[in-house]
């Protein structure tokens, strides 16, 4: 049986429906990310779970209990906010112990639990510090300790890393995941950062315009996107334009080369233009031992990014594809204008869309 059940959730603000027929079941102890662009409804769903918003229709069950009619204070759900939301009038210990004080815990119990939680987030010794005496990363760790101190049934994280700088974001997300695993607490994490979602989640729910586009594990979401939106939103995609040769056999033509793609849109007819989508890492520079399709072009631009060299390769016909290769100390990046041949396997084509859809995606 699932731990969190969202059934037919709809939410409207006036005439705008921001969440549409949202159904989701999560198993106990999972770390699930809601991923999507701004305005897709992910934070609204999180706030509905927390009890800060009432759904226009639908039900929410946590551990078998219908919590739809309960207030936020009755749900026993821990929440970490983007803006930390530490109580400015309380020091770190006061913040972490607040939930326990509300629950009526004894002073000794509160002191012990506060010390335990601050140790867990690596801030033992910071008990007396006020929020204005803590850095952003430290404040968010206190906020995490505060959320989990009263032993909530589940944990909600509303873009908790967005306000932090890049380095702290990476270390804190790893710490959050470690703590979640240690406590085994069911966690929903809202983010618009796909790298964050891919790196820490058991499951990802990709949302767009109030709907679930795909729910799956990070590997499937990245490698087997269910919709053109997911394919475009997650990671980077190269577009190769091709002409449909034989729709019945999924045959397309790029220049002189004919290839058999995994699928074609149902409406594709012979002679139509289609866009083949591939990840940059699926493409290789030809080295004489290649399999698959080979296409020739020239270097349009080259960027040295440290560990990675990113090339833009002009294949003609308006197609400029990106190709990433690891830095090699013995080999200089190619010069702009140098001729190159790239290869890829037909199986690496993520999706095939009608050429005019690609513009809108």
């Amino acid at each position, binding site marked *: 049986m699932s731990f969190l059940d969202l059934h037919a959730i709809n939410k409207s603000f006036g005439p705008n429906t921001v969440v549409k027929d949202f159904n989701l079941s999560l198993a106990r102890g999972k770390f699930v990310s809601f991923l999507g662009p701004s305005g897709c409804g992910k934070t609204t769903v999180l706030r509905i779970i927390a009890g800060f918003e009432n759904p226009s229709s639908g039900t929410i069950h946590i551990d078998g209990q219908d919590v739809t009619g309960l207030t*936020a204070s009755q749900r026993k759900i821990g929440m970490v906010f983007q*803006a930390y939301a530490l109580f400015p009038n309380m020091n770190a210990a006061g913040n972490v112990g607040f939930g326990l004080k509300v629950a009526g815990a004894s002073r000794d119990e509160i002191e012990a639990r506060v010390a335990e939680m601050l140790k867990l987030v690596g801030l033992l010794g910071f008990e007396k510090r006020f929020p204005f005496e803590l*850095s952003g990363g430290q404040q968010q760790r206190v906020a995490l300790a*505060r959320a989990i101190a009263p032993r909530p049934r589940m944990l909600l994280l509303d873009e908790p890393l967005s306000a932090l700088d890049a380095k702290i974001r990476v270390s804190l997300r790893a710490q959050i995941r470690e703590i979640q695993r240690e406590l085994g607490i069911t966690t929903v994490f809202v983010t618009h950062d796909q790298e964050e979602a891919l790196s820490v989640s058991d499951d990802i729910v990709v949302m767009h315009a109030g709907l679930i586009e795909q729910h799956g594990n990070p590997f499937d979401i990245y490698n087997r996107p269910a919709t053109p939106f997911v394919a475009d939103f997650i990671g980077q995609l190269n577009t190769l334009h091709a002409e449909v040769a034989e729709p019945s056999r999924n045959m397309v033509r790029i220049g002189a080369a004919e290839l058999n793609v995994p699928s074609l849109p149902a409406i594709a007819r012979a002679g139509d233009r289609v866009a083949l989508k591939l990840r940059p890492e699926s493409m290789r520079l030809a080295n004489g031992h290649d399999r698959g399709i080979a296409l020739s072009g020239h270097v349009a631009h080259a960027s040295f990014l440290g560990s990675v060299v990113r090339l833009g390769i002009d294949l003609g016909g308006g197609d400029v594809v990106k190709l990433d290769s690891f830095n090699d100390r013995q080999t200089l990046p190619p010069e702009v204008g140098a001729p190159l041949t790239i290869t890829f396997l037909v199986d690496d084509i993520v999706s095939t869309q009608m050429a005019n859809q690609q513009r809108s995606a």
Partner: protein
Amino acid sequence: MKHGFPIASTLIVFVAAAYFLVPLYATFQFSLQMKRGELSLASYASVLASADFINTLSYSAIASFAAILFGAILVVPTAYWVRLKLQKLRPAVEFLSLLPLIIPPVVLVFGHIRLFGSSSILPLTMTSTGTDILLIVGYVVLSLPYMFRAVDNGMAAIDIATLTEAAESLGASRLRTIVEIIFPNVRSAIVAGAFLTFSISLGEFVLASLLNRPAFGPYMVQLGEDRAYEPAALAILSFALTWILMLLMQLFATRKPNQRLLPRFGTGQSRKLAP
């Protein structure tokens, strides 16, 4: 880039300062001339020795404290609720809070007398306590623009919506959230509003005079009619009191939690943020 001496702005500052300070200095000097041919503090001694001075000042101080208390009880929950749930009503509430600046106090007090006079169903003006209540309510209304603005700005600075949600997610009731989270975090703003209320109410004349209360404002006016040097001394004392209150307001309004009122001398230590 080299800037020349700002002659025009310096001149404006001097003229503005002179406009305020010259009459004040003249009043101060006049207050020292009670004894012919010498400068003395005799007028101040005369004022401070007067029982009426102490009685009226005490009365106005008590009425002002009561107005601060009622004002805070009225304004804090209102500003909180408007910011949290009734954002659309904010312009209307702000406009209402500014009305006392537009409507003269004399209109307010005649409204009070008509509404709560001897022929009304609630004849508050018929008893001394009732009239005191009307005076305090009047002070609350007069100080509303300052109290509401101070508290509302204080709430804008702390993102009360998120703090309320954080408290609720930890199981706190709405009342507990207001008492333990919101109130302490707008304390500085309330203190600022309170000092403004105090300085407005302490020397207020129109309400106290027309309600016939033994307050400090009417006492000052009466003294001005009867004596020569004491009113000048009283004006200087009144200024000094107001300035002390403003100074206290600055100290409290800019204070962070756990921060001392005055810096600790001698230790030279400060806590730094960890990386």
